[in-house]
């Protein structure tokens, strides 16, 4: 029993992360410095927020491909609400978060009400939301935000990047919800056997609606941080971020078929990817080489984990 527990996916991954950190630190003296690591944490936050909620989505057996587009759309709306409508920035931020949440809710409604498979539904809204972002922005970018706004994306609190605090809080809250609450249990049950969950009187559809809304909210939050970090708003923001998030989640041991996965795993997956990207580029490896390596690591980790993860279920 104890050996089996030790060979859990998360443990294998943690060992890999430590190994990668050691190897990368040996490759470049600039890698293992507090400044660099904190900066990497800053860069990781946007994908991280999305990946954490994506873990819930994938545990229910679903997928959300539209998060990158929601990020772009929310970012554009933030600029539009503030600059074009002249609203106070605080209100604009709130409204941008609402836009993202509603976009996620809309995904959830398509999936639960009309029984469209999540892959198809969010593939559709991926195009839809990006189209809205581009149509509204008319290829104009918004700049010149007030200084206090940049604290979020560029500033520090107690020596740690502001957004990293946010990521930490979201991660802890998400881990508690998924691991310890009735909501988390319903999420796992839905992903393992939706029919049995429904037959047990669980509100499967409501769970899904909430999770997809949360996914939209996380993407919008990432958008606000993104805008603050790069000081500008553009409609192509967040393109492809859905794949980075999904990679981290799957690398973290969440089953793409649902029913299995943890927040810790996702965080380890995120850290491993970010460490490889940064460490390899510091060591002088070209970025295409890095992508190849990340792909290889993803497949290898899943293979190793499958090798050890054989439960007695036929």
């Amino acid at each position, binding site marked *: 029993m104890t050996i089996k527990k030790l060979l859990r996916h998360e443990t294998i991954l943690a060992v890999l992360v430590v190994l990668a950190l050691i190897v990368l630190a040996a490759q470049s003296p600039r890698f293992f410095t507090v400044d660099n690591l904190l900066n990497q944490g800053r860069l990781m936050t946007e994908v991280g927020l999305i990946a954490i909620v994506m873990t819930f989505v994938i545990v229910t057996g679903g997928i959300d491909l539209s998060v990158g587009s929601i990020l772009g759309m929310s970012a554009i709306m933030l600029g539009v609400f503030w600059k074009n409508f002249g609203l106070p920035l605080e209100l604009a931020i709130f409204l941008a978060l609402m836009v993202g949440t509603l976009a996620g809710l809309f995904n959830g409604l398509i999936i639960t009400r009309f029984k469209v498979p999540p892959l198809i539904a969010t593939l559709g809204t991926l195009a839809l939301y990006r189209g809205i972002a581009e149509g509204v922005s008319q290829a104009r970018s918004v700049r010149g935000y007030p200084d206090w706004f940049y604290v979020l994306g560029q500033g520090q609190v107690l020596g740690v990047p502001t957004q990293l605090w946010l990521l930490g809080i979201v991660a802890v809250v998400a881990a508690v919800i998924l691991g*310890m609450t*009735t909501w988390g249990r319903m999420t796992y*049950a839905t992903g*393992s056997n939706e029919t*049995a969950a429904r*037959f047990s*009187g*669980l509100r499967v559809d409501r769970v899904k609606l909430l999770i997809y809304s949360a996914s939209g909210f996380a993407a919008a939050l990432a958008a606000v941080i993104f805008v603050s970090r790069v000081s500008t708003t553009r409609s192509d923001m967040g393109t492809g971020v859905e794949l980075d998030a999904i990679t981290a989640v799957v690398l973290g041991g969440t089953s793409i078929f649902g029913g299995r996965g943890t927040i810790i795993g996702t965080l380890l997956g995120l850290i491993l990817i970010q460490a490889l990207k940064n460490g390899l580029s510091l060591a002088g490896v070209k970025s295409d080489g890095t992508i190849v390596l990340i792909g290889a690591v993803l497949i290898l980790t899943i293979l190793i984990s499958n090798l050890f993860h054989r439960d007695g279920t036929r």
Partner: protein
Amino acid sequence: MTVEVRLERVSKSFGGVRVLRDVDFDVRAGEVHALLGENGAGKSTLIKIIAGVHAPDTGLIHIGDQQFRALSPREARKGGIATVYQELLLFPELTVTENIFLGNAPRGRLNMLDWQQMRRRARQLLDSLDSPDLDVDAKVGSLSVANRQRVEIAKALSQDARVVIMDEPTAALADADVERLMAVIKRLRERGVAIIYVSHKLPEIFALADRVTVLRDGALIGTRPIAEVTEQTLVAMMVGREIDHMFPKAEAAIGETILKVRNLSYGQRVKDISFDLRRGEIVGVAGLVGAGRTELALTIFGITPADSGTIEVDGKPVRILSPRQARNLGIAYVPEDRGLQGLVRPMTIAQNTSMAALRHVASGIFISLTREARQAVEAIASLGVRARGPDQVVAQLSGGNQQKVVLGKWLETHPLILIMDEPTRGIDVGAKAEIHALMSRLAKEGMAILMISSELPEVLGMSDRILVMHGGRLAATIDRADATPETVGAAMTQAGAAGVAA
């Protein structure tokens, strides 16, 4: 009679658990050899070794005069062994002909498929199985379970099978279809085919088998000619003890009406159903497959809310639109399909037990794992679940123990009304008696139980009253005193003189 297949001192373990120990087994041309044992006794493993799915750890397999340490599925097929599995392995989108010849289709010129010959041979095969009414061009997905099974048998015969393994072939069949299947099996036997017949149903075994082999806990208990055994001796061999009362519905005080259904209708399957259910009462629902029994349960339980009609629970009129609502009203449903509807198989006993009443083990939104585990331990003890502990994954349990977990899950909701759909399907004799005893106990404690069952002895033995459904309608209500196999059977098939239940 020639021996077609013989196993010699075969053993097999899965993950350290011995499932077969030094078992000898053989089947001869022109005989039906019944294989009997409780779930987990090793029957499935034995037939899978013969079919080439599993390789034995030790022992030998003889086919004709050839000897094997292990068979591949291909070698088994070449050796003339075909299997008709319980979960029929057909392709629903392909036609009957395509299914029969998939993988060994006759080829014509240029190595093209010879469709005419295929269809002609499919027709011949089905006719030889006494099924001239089966269309060779119909999609298999549109066929009834009984007809699909015939297609599977035809498929076995198309490969010139000399040994046909049948794994619980009658588990999902209505009585009329069972009789037809038995006729087909007898025909195969006359042709000299050797048949290995796995079943829980003793009457079938006495009607069909020439010899019977009993396994218990992976060990061979004995192989006997059927003439030398009685039902009692077989049951004793299977469970290692005598079971005297198979259906012990104890007397319970019948209380006030708790469920009142009037003119309930849903679609084409539930039409104008009215009945009452009282505390302490077990009401059986009998009927052929497709009579609308499960649909009635699903309508009461809110999966498919009623189109019209009324339901009163404990005197209050209610509209039930979801299972959640049904649960909150005190209605529990132990479904027909345990694996799909009843359990989350990868989850533990504790997690399954708490699923329908998570609030009982939670403080606010937080689940208390200790309270959940304690609840599961209590359920395991009171229901007699045989398991390593509350943390065991339910997929690893036998059918009977899985059913107890489903029941345990619903008892945690403290229901007033318990609907049990085929409560003992696919469950071995010992566990079956335990489930029946549990139902009796619950009725005695004042629960109202609606029991849907395709097994007539079960319906007759357990029910205070029997509702017989036919074509979605209530065909008859029969009191315990008047219920005999004849009266219930007649009501089940009545009016069916002209129309065949599809």
